[in-house]
């Protein structure tokens, strides 16, 4: 059996969890929230032209792989990133790195990972995990959304690494080649905060950032008329699943960013960040209330107050609150 001593820690979101665990392996203790914030993980975009399960994509986080790349850059660490066409070559490359004692991050389609309980299976092709060993035909897996390390048969892992569909992982694997002995945490945090503000306030696309939240609110209000009641419910269901289930979603990401701002306040000795952390938690609460209204609509238990218009109003409140937070963040750092 080949087993690398790897510090598995459960996290809320796979990519920030994998980054946090890989850095910890290399002796750089980094919380998940810190990795998420430094990596500019927070984002919003409603992309109706990209379909997932034939329904429009909404994202509450940055692009897949973005956190990893930005954390590596801001912490001055070198990362190796490989993509494959041939599944067998991809598995051989993984084995080679494991034999060298290197834990390897892999991007996978979560649906095909056999250790996912059926109730939590969903088609999501950007699920990250770390492979840290091999026992016979089983790989030893640190999947950050699970409390304990898991095992996965080679066949299952290969299928998950080459899952088809939107955001197909194409065998992507990654590992740190070199980490910096000295890290400027304050600079990394400041840079991460500035970029999140820029992305949320100044992305030119009308469907991204806080403008994107307004864009979604306007579209959502029209769904019943445009799509009919049944299809509208499917759209709302997708919006909620992506908010609360896939990778912890809208409210969860806002709470995680609030935790990051708390840590940032301590590192930068800046108490304004503590107040903004509280405001971000409050924004997360509004996102969650939006999802609850949506859940009631989807499940046919909506009261007179639980309407598409009310969901849209909640979204507009989220956008306004977040606008203020990002503007204040830019003023205080």
């Amino acid at each position, binding site marked *: 059996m080949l087993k690398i001593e790897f510090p598995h820690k*459960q*996290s*809320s*979101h796979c990519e920030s969890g994998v980054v946090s665990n890989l850095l910890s392996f290399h002796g750089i203790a980094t919380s998940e929230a810190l990795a998420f914030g430094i990596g500019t993980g927070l984002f919003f975009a409603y992309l109706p032209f990209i379909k997932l399960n034939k329904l429009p994509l909404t994202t509450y986080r940055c692009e897949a792989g973005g956190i990893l790349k930005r954390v590596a850059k801001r912490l001055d660490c070198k990362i190796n990133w490989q993509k494959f066409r041939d599944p067998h070559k991809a598995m051989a490359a993984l084995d080679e790195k494991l034999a060298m004692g290197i834990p390897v991050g892999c991007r996978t389609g979560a649906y095909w990972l056999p250790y996912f309980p059926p*109730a*939590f299976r*969903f088609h999501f092709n950007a699920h990250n995990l770390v492979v840290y060993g091999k026992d016979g035909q089983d790989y030893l897996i640190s999947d950050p*959304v699970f*409390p304990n390390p898991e095992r996965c048969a080679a066949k299952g892992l290969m299928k998950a690494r080459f899952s088809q569909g939107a955001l197909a992982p194409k065998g992507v694997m990654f590992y740190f080649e070199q980490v910096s002995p000295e890290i400027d945490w304050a600079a990394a945090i400041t840079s991460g905060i500035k970029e999140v503000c820029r992305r949320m306030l100044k992305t030119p696309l009308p469907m991204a950032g806080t403008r994107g939240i307004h864009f979604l609110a306007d579209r959502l209000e029209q769904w019943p008329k445009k799509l009919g009641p049944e299809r509208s419910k499917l759209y709302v*269901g997708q919006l*909620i*699943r992506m908010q*609360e*289930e896939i990778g*912890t979603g809208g409210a*969860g990401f806002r*709470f*995680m960013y609030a935790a990051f701002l708390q840590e940032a306040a301590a590192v930068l000795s800046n108490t304004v960040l503590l107040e903004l952390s509280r405001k971000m938690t409050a924004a997360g609460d509004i996102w*969650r*209330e939006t*999802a*609850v209204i*949506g*859940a*009631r609509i*989807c*499940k046919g*238990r909506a009261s007179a107050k639980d309407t598409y218009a009310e969901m849209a109003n909640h979204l507009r409140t989220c956008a306004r609150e977040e606008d203020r937070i990002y503007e204040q963040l830019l003023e205080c750092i």
Partner: protein
Amino acid sequence: MANGTDIPLKEKLKALIVEELRITHVAPQEITDDEPIFADKLGLDSIDAVEVVYLVEKYFDVKIKDMKEARPALQSINTLAAFIEAHCLRN
């Protein structure tokens, strides 16, 4: 009523879930403490989980912040009650 103060926590949770999620085919007393909440019997899924999380905060002032907390907490009535009790003690 579900939010009465003299009802044991697990019974209160069962009543809340049945009542607020409008489950008509299962009575609160038919839910056992250790059976999965999100399974065929109750017919609940991840969308309903959003509302369960919201109900826990509304009625018990305990916030389940993310799926890291939600996954283990939402396994059964036993795990949900344990999560609420642990956080009530902490608060």
